[in-house]
């Protein structure tokens, strides 16, 4: 983009050269075209040139503007094309910020349903606007899937690409069964990495109750099946009895120590001593935390 403005004037070249030379104006590309002379001058001297040829006998006009003005004139003279270009650019930019496909590759591609479900929770879904994603959080969620050793996320054009690599020694878990409670107790906490928790904290559960189901609800409201990954901590109340020949501190300690067979973190709630014909029977009531998990490494 040069900064020369092309001008046409009805005057002989000699006159043009003489007048502009006298005014100390640099002259470029002077040509004779019949009765007119075309030449170019720097943009900043255009007004001066018009002032020089202000006499009515000189028919002067600008043939082509230079510099920014030339660009503006070209754009305005092709307003349809300019608007089309702007619309196209806007469409390209909008398309760039959309996610048209979520691609899960790598040796862990069999975990695609679970990965897509996790991405969906963070707003990355096909056909939706991409507003960025907290990559470390999402990667840690995907890394918590069974056997996953590496994960990377990349937005490439309109595709969101996830590379998931799994340990070759790891067992490819494709279990899509729910997590059932193996004990009767009270739920202390439930963590569903994949799947939907079916119990709440403080809820009493019986043996066989479903804790986490292998499904999730998509953004469109549909229920999708997925791998069940997670764990639940359940407070279990239990009792243990032990027999001793006589009531003593040592016998009590032995009875309380039996609690540790169930859990190292068991806490004794009460105990009782019952005299029998051949000695005493200690009954120790205690609680402990049982952790039920599925597909956790």
């Amino acid at each position, binding site marked *: 983009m040069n900064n020369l403005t092309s001008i046409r004037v009805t005057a002989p*070249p000699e006159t043009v*050269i*003489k007048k502009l030379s006298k005014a100390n104006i640099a002259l*470029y590309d*002077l*040509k*004779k075209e019949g009765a007119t002379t075309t030449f170019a001058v720097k943009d900043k001297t255009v007004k001066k040139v018009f002032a020089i040829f202000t006499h009515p006998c000189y028919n002067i006009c600008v043939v082509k503007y230079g510099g920014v003005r030339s660009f503006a004139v070209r754009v305005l003279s092709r307003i349809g094309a300019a608007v089309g270009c702007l619309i196209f650019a806007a469409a390209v930019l909008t398309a760039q910020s959309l996610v048209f496909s979520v691609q899960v590759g790598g040796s862990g591609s069999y975990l695609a349903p679970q990965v897509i479900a996790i991405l969906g929770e963070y707003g990355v879904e096909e056909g939706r606007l991409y507003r960025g994603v907290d990559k470390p959080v999402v990667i840690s969620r995907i890394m918590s899937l069974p056997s996953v050793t590496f994960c990377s996320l990349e937005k490439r054009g309109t595709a969101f690409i996830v590379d998931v690599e799994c340990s070759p020694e790891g067992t490819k878990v494709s279990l899509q069964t729910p997590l059932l409670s193996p004990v009767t107790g009270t739920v202390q906490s439930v963590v569903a990495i994949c799947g939907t928790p079916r119990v709440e904290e403080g809820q009493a559960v019986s043996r066989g109750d479903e804790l986490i189901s292998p499904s999730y609800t998509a953004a469109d409201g549909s229920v999708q099946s997925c791998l069940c990954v997670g764990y639940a901590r359940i407070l279990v109340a239990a009792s243990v009895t032990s027999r001793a020949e006589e009531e003593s501190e040592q016998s009590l300690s032995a009875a309380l120590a039996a609690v540790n067979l169930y859990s190292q973190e068991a806490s004794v709630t009460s105990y009782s001593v019952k005299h029998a014909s051949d000695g005493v029977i200690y009954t120790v009531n205690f609680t402990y935390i049982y952790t039920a998990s599925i597909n956790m490494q």
Partner: protein
Amino acid sequence: MEFLQQILSAAGADTLNAFTVVPGFGGYFKGVKGVTSFSPQKIALAVGKTPVSVSGEDLSIGRFFEGDLFISGRITGVELE
């Protein structure tokens, strides 16, 4: 340029009134005071006391400022009139 200066000095001239012609491209003229006539075939220049006539084809003035003149086109002859 030093050699050119020597030649011009020996001829009683100087580089301020010299010109250079590049065949098929154009010519560069110094010390031009004005253009006395102009046509695509012939351009008459006022250079010092001696008019210079440049003849050729498709001649046009590429640039003219403060005595420096560039004539573009196919120059076939330069005459001192």
